[in-house]
């Protein structure tokens, strides 16, 4: 019997997983929140937009086009469900809801390949709740999918490759970039370099972006300490204030800020599946445990792409294919087993290289956890419900929370609309510092269903069972 396989996500990992399944003769269901395939990195612009792939995706245009073309070619053989949220996972069943119609479905599966991607990893900066402050990813989506800049004078602050990439894309598109402010030092240490040299061309591309920004007259500062985002509740952002590497306070006037510290994995479905997680000391985040083929600790559940390890788009393509083939191998699917046997070593080697590079990135652009621990008491940690660092600390110091979910229950940090996506990592650092515990000992916010808010009007009458 042909196995029932469901893929979540249609970014680089999901598309390559679906393609591998189809090659083996298995027609998967692909559940995707996007309107079209491509994920965030290779997001397709709406119909009627005219910009070329080279304009949209730069040096990655050929890869983006190949991914789109290959998925187009699969469309007859996959059940592609766009604009559909996988909102819960219960005993071998995936629960989905279609955004516009509210139609729900419950999908049974023999194997589930979760390629849920990532979001920006955020560090609160006092004032980040003001209108005009966006994630770096948001700044990029505004440009890529809508041909807009997030403001007329933009400051980018944070760390990681996306910081320089988005800033360079803005400059190239004709936006005015006031400054690029990196909390990481300009020159990475030797250990970081060793990792980055695993992908020398990518490293050079990164250095070229930085040089291009300087040539364009953009102030690029390293080793900064973010102090605050100035603005008013009514008018939003007006400036970014920071301490530079020499300890001097600097102010950059602006009407928009793009903020982000590399990425965090969307791991809620893995959590709901009951997958084991492990704390990764270098990046100070919890990630689902996977083996070198993408198998989670739960039989039948496979994890690939940035939702499992932040390897970037190239790594996601390899991981998606490998996880899908591993699933078929585990299901004793004959053609799948043949493909798995032929390809797994090569794919694993590719992923090992990508993972070495990832380790370099984590060291070159470290998560500045000390900033979180040092946030002033009146700084908002939870943007959703305007909960301050002081309220969060009180849940530790006055109410005895030594664990993040308990601190959440007392303070509501992580309970709002974003469900802790943007405050969770910083909140853990605040709680750990207040409790004088290592951050891994305060735990992590548990994933909860629905993984995103779902309208109660979701039509149960339209429910279908698979």
């Amino acid at each position, binding site marked *: 019997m042909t196995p029932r396989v469901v893929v979540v996500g249609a970014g680089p990992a999901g598309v390559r997983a679906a393609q591998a399944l189809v090659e083996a003769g298995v027609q998967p269901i692909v559940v995707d929140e996007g309107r079209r395939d491509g994920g965030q990195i290779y997001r397709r612009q709406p119909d*009627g937009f005219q910009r070329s792939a080279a304009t949209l995706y730069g040096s990655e245009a050929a890869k983006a086009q190949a991914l789109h073309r290959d998925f187009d070619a699969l469309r007859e053989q996959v059940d592609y469900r766009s604009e559909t949220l996988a909102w819960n996972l219960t005993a071998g069943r995936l629960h989905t809801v279609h955004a516009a119609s509210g139609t729900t479905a419950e999908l049974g599966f023999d194997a589930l390949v979760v390629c849920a991607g990532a979001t920006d990893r955020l560090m609160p900066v006092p004032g980040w709740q003001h*209108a005009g402050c*966006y994630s770096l990813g948001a700044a990029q989506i505004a440009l890529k999918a809508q*041909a807009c800049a997030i403001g007329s004078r933009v400051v980018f602050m944070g760390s990681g490759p996306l910081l320089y990439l988005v800033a360079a894309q803005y400059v190239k598109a004709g936006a005015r970039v006031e400054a690029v402010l990196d909390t990481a030092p300009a020159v990475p240490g030797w250990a970081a370099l060793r990792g980055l040299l695993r992908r020398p061309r990518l490293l050079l591309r990164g250095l070229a972006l930085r040089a291009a920004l300087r040539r364009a007259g953009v102030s690029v500062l390293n080793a900064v300490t973010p102090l605050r985002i100035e603005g008013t*509740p009514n008018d939003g952002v007006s400036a970014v204030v920071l301490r530079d590497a020499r300890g001097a306070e600097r102010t950059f*006037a602006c009407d*928009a800020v793009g903020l982000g510290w590399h990425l965090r994995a969307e791991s809620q479905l893995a959590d709901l599946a009951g997958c084991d997680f492990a704390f990764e000391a270098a990046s100070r985040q919890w990630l689902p445990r996977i083996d070198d083929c993408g198998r989670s600790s739960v039989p039948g559940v496979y994890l690939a792409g940035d939702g499992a390890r932040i390897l970037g788009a190239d790594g996601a393509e390899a991981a998606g294919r490998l996880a899908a083939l591993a699933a078929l191998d585990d299901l004793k699917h004959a053609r799948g087993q043949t493909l798995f046997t032929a390809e797994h070593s090569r794919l694993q080697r590719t992923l090992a290289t990508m993972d070495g590079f990832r380790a370099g990135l984590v060291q070159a652009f470290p998560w500045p956890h000390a900033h979180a621990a040092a946030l002033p008491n009146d700084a908002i940690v939870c943007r959703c419900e305007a909960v301050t660092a002081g309220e969060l600390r009180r849940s530790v110091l006055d109410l005895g929370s030594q664990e993040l979910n308990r601190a959440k229950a007392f303070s509501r940090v992580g309970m709002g609309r974003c469900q802790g996506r943007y405050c969770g990592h910083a909140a853990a650092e605040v709680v750990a510092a207040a409790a004088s515990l290592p951050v891994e000992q305060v735990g992590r916010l548990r994933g909860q269903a629905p993984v995103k808010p779902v309208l109660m009007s979701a039509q149960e009458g339209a429910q279908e069972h698979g």
Partner: protein
Amino acid sequence: MNEPLPKPGSGGRFVRLAETARPALQLFIDGQPAGALEGDTLLVALLTHGRRVRTSEFGDGNRAGFCLMGACQDCWVWDGAGQRLRACSTVVVDGMDVRTTPPASHWPMTPEVAMRQRGEALP
């Protein structure tokens, strides 16, 4: 770096950099007619006209979205029927009626609120 910022409230927050030759559409933002382009998200339509999407219900001021990828839920607005829309992932349709404040029915009147509205002291 010393040029004055655009005056808050004048014009939009987002700046169109390309793709401006698309067909024009009209929508209504809080009852006021506003122009948009075919393919615009609601968020872009709101922010090329104004500088806010909604007002935080926790008293910290105006909001204009945050992640643009459907993860933060900071850009909720409502249609004329009171249905919630996520502005970053909703495409503008000609004639759309968008409200940036939640329908009153979302916040049912409590005895305390009613008393406060009548100017009475709370017990």
